[in-house]
């Protein structure tokens, strides 16, 4: 009872209007503004309801302390119901979490969405997941083992530097990935997540072309890792289908033989060692 006496429960007055913070949360704003002089028990009730911004009655986030098996344990929501600036990304991530191997569903454009924005989210997500491929590659793909960035008979120069350099494979991979992330996060090229400026669309091709080399190197030089990773994530499959359907990569640049054995003709044409430096 001592404790109760000391506890003062007040909803703190905040100098600026709460509407600025709660644009995505109009229900909460009204909740709390009407609540300012309420009693503790009311607060408790309101606090419970505050968490129920989703239909399930619980906020859809991983609280600290969430166990592995409980991570992201909330039902798939239709895209229209996601009220956030990152709706497309959330939707995409939830699709992937649901079943990463259902590639066709994942890459299919949700109805009523901008094609380029969807593509942008996909490329971001691929960059994100490629981080993990590099984590797996790192112990094996050392400068000693792979002193040059090669994929089959191709050799690549690292174009992230002012003048293209012959980075070793792991450097090339990380630099390329960092460079792609930087480009995708650059507000100059991609100021909005709702639509992509016309001038920036061409960047997708160069990004995709470079990301492809990461897959290619893994495939030709670290096949075990590639296969294990692919079995877990189907990332390459997703990337390839996305790139092909959106014409991001020309067929002649595809040097990894088709994984599904249905079409093995692509990529056989190019057979000379090339320095691909700054063709983009």
């Amino acid at each position, binding site marked *: 009872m001592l404790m109760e006496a000391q506890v003062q429960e007040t909803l703190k007055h905040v100098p600026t209007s709460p509407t600025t913070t709660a644009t995505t949360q109009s229900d*909460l704003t009204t909740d709390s503004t009407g609540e300012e002089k309420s009693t503790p028990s009311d*607060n408790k009730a309101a606090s419970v309801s505050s968490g129920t911004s989703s239909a399930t009655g619980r906020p859809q986030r991983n609280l600290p302390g*969430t166990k592995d098996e409980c991570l992201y344990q909330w039902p798939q929501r239709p895209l229209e119901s996601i009220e956030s600036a990152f709706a497309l990304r959330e939707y995409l991530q939830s699709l992937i979490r649901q079943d990463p191997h259902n590639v066709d569903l994942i890459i299919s454009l949700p109805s009523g969405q901008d094609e380029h924005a969807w593509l942008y989210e996909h490329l971001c997500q691929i960059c994100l997941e490629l981080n993990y491929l590099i984590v797996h590659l790192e112990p094996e793909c050392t400068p000693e083992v792979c002193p040059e960035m090669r994929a089959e008979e191709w050799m690549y120069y690292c174009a992230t530097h002012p003048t293209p350099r012959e980075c070793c494979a792991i450097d090339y991979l990380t630099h390329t990935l960092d460079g792609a992330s930087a480009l995708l996060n650059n507000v100059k090229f991609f100021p909005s997540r709702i639509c992509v400026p016309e001038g920036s669309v061409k960047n997708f091709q160069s990004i995709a072309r470079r990301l492809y080399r990461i897959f290619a190197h893994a495939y030709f030089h670290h096949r075990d890792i590639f296969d294990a990773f692919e079995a877990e994530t189907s990332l390459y499959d997703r990337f390839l289908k996305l790139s092909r359907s959106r014409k991001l990569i020309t067929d002649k640049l595809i040097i990894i033989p088709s994984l599904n054995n249905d079409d093995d003709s692509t990529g056989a044409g190019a057979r000379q060692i090339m320095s691909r430096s700054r063709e983009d």
Partner: protein
Amino acid sequence: MHQFQSFAPPQPPTAAEYAFPSVLQFLQSEWRRFERDRNEWDIEKSEMKARIAFLEGEKRGVDNSKIDLMKRVKMLEFALRQERSKYVEAKDDNSAAVPAQGQLPLAQGVTPSHVNMKTQNRMSTYGQNMTQVSPTSATPGLDPLGRAKSREFLRICLQEISYLTASVPQSIASAMPPAPTRLVRNESDRRAAAATGGRNRKSDYYPATQSSSAPPPPLNRASSVPVSTLQSFGKGKPAMNSSSPPIEDKAEDATLRQFAVPHHAAQPIPNRTTKGSEESTRTEPIVKPAPLITTNITKPPTEKMDSEKDSSDDTDSVDEDPVTVVHSPLSGDDWHAKLQRAGQQLALQDKPKKSKKAEDDVQLAKDVQDKFNISPERLNKMVKEWDKTKLDGGGCQKSMRKKKAKDSALLDELANLTVNEAETDMGTRTGDAATDEPARWRPKVTLRRHMDTVRSIAFHPTKKAILSGSEDGTMKFWNLETALGDSRKAAGGELDPIHTYRGHTKGITAVALSADQNKCFSASLDRTIRAYGLVPMNKETYARLDPSLNLSTFVGHTDAVWDIRLFPLSISSSQLLGSISADGTVKIWDTETKGSPLKSSWSYHGSDVSSATASTGPKQGPVPTGLAFCPTDLKKMVVSYSNSVIKLFDIETGKDILTFKSNETYDGTTGTQINKVICHPTLPVVVSGHEDRYIRFFDLTSGVCSYSMLTHLDAVSSLDIDPAGLVLCSGGHDASVRLWDIASTQRTCLQEFTGHRRKGNEGVCAVQYHSTMPELLATGGADSLVKIYTRS
């Protein structure tokens, strides 16, 4: 003047006749005159050069003294830490030290009356206080009261320090002005407050900081504005407070002017007084802050000479005037004297000037008397001494050195009078610093390279660099040096991290940075904690990968690791790291050891009963959600649990010491759990951020909730307390960041701003103050961004 005279005589003869000899003579005389003038100019030029060199030297000296002071600060900090660890070693868990701690919450409560009483006390019995404080701080732990007092004293020192380090710019000219004005304002405010029958604490403090922040020129000139008006102004616009950059700018301008117009170059005196004070600092290092402020106070008299010319009948005008460089007749004389010594006629002080000075002196006397409450006799004595010094310097062309000695003698005298002012200032500094905070934080740099929610950030403790950990599985290290330095670059520029740490196979939940060990750590949902070497600040983004950066991986948790914290103290051979995991355990790792890094591990019930409950399965028990080491009691740490309980554990033994009464709103679901727990840096206070939007304050020793408040529109995700311990910053999933004045009993919200956009029901996920640069704040959010804020 004399130039004019010499020009006049040759004129008439030339007008009379144009004979060859006369023309020749004229030409010769003209040439001679010209030569003479040129000589003079040369002399003047060299004099100016000498003066520039002198001023530069002085500036360097001041810089050195700043470094010296910083070293001292570091020493003090170190001593404090030593003292704490010593205390921890010595202290028995069950000893009678509890009463000592029980007293501290009082200090934390900081009720207005309490503060006022304290300050008054200080003012009246300063001498007593000082003698009491010094010995106790030297031999702490004698009795609980002394310990509390010494801790209070050290805390004040630290605040002093953080204030000084925050605003000490390059030259003393800019560093000094704020303090005297602040003191003086404080004093006048207090008097005004006393006259009006006492005001609440706020009105006492806001104006103080307003003046301390060197208000913009228009405000300065509004010299006749009554105190009360200013007070209300200060209250209404806390945003005006404490802008150190303007001070610097102004001061720099002033310094420039000093060089450009040497005749107006003013006040070598204050600079010299600094040196004088330094000497006194050396003799009595234990009262370090006092002499420092003494110099501040002694400065106004030298400035007043001039600033009062404008409004000689208004005391307040002087009080407010933070002018750093003014045309000072004294230094002008000084200048002339030097010129004469170099072979120039002495331009004697003209009479009007003298009478003006006399007026000024009278005014000054009144002011000083008012301000320091001293008897007229004493004042007269001081003024006489002061005049003597002036004459010595100006008339008799004594060397600078002698003058300096005189000044410092005067200083000593003044010191006796002004120390209680200094002490008062120290007392109010707690409040000042608090009101310093309302200065608005503004976003300065945005770091956009992460691909997913930024879950954790950590500043480098001494450099402008930050570490960020994201759900995309990467940890990035950013050098903010250039971005924070150049505003244009920061505005449009895209900052790249200097390094991206990869290694985790799932999202990162927490990062930590140890500057002493030159390491950084990341915890992840993939159940591991990884240690990396810190890359040098000048690393290029796309440099070669250095495999030696991957130091070690701490494997041991059997479920997602959700938070890690570094032990606040580190020795070269040992740096403890605490981690919590969804497997229900708290683990302590020694990151420096050669052997097995895992030191200890315990579950909900602590180490004692862990074996007993292990059979029932710790996975069923409550899961830790946050942890924090207690900087005020280094043997202990607090851990928050998913059942909204906070527990206090002994780090060494893992013993469950205390369970906090923190679960009053717990309803059996994780919807009411604690998301974040932190410890106050200087007080035995624990602060928790709850999923049900509460922030609660607990007493570390008793575990009793001392305050509870609803703070955000959605769950509180992150908390941090500023290094001075006066402002709490909270981040919520409502995407807002809020700053709370925790020094006041009301715990008002000082500022609120939208930090990040929401993604997946998450908003702001991390907030962090820079531990040594109080002008830096960073937030990380669900929109994959890290934002750096500065205060202005």
